[in-house]
């Protein structure tokens, strides 16, 4: 599963992307976040306030209960500020 981080989530996580092998029980975005938080201090800091985190699976906005599967591209980022 490919994980992408943008803006300050990228800075806190200390990486722009990573490829992870998640345990079988991690089947939703919410579960993935909980699992990632256990992967290091940077990850923990990035997800410290989940209300500030937006998620896209395969480039589509999704909610925390959205399923994640092997092969998905999952992106985490703050609310957008373009325009």
């Amino acid at each position, binding site marked *: 599963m490919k994980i992408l981080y943008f803006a300050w989530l990228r800075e806190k996580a200390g990486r722009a992307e990573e490829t992870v092998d998640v345990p079988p029980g991690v089947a939703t975005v919410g579960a993935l976040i909980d699992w990632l938080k256990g992967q290091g201090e940077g990850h923990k800091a990035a997800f410290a306030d989940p209300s500030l985190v937006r998620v*896209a699976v395969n*480039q589509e906005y999704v909610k925390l209960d959205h399923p994640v599967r092997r092969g998905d*591209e999952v*992106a985490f980022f*703050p*609310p*957008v*500020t*373009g*325009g």
Partner: protein
Amino acid sequence: MIRVQREDFDIGAEIAALTAGKRAIGGVCTFVGLVREIAGDRAISAMTLEHYPAMTAKELERIEAEARTRWPLEATLIVHRYGRLEPGDRIVLVIAASAHREAAFEACHFLIDFLKTKAPFWKREEGSEGGTWVDARAADDTATRRWTRKTERPQRKRRHAAE
């Protein structure tokens, strides 16, 4: 049509190219966003726009397609820049062209409102005390919600009646 690019754009040339030969167009509404030298009460020396390329293109196309289902448009264009920009630089260009001016205005306004809350861009401002990621504005969410179809506003009806 949508484009995401590092380079600047030429507003007049973009409008001319977009509307060339389309003789049904009566009104063209354009919005250009510029980098301000002040954000809140903080002086800005530069700004860096980061984005999520694979998703940006998809989202902008979705937003543009939605506008074209809502208004009778002859042409639309969104150009958004990324990378490092300075005060006075152009950030974004939105153009909506229609036979009638109301449709052009509404569609252009809709496009920029939606882009501001949906397109995956993030601004990092540089000032004398270092860089700061810009916070999303609640006002932008409010602006986007205005266009929600379920809560039809009296204003929207009135405007359409004026066409």
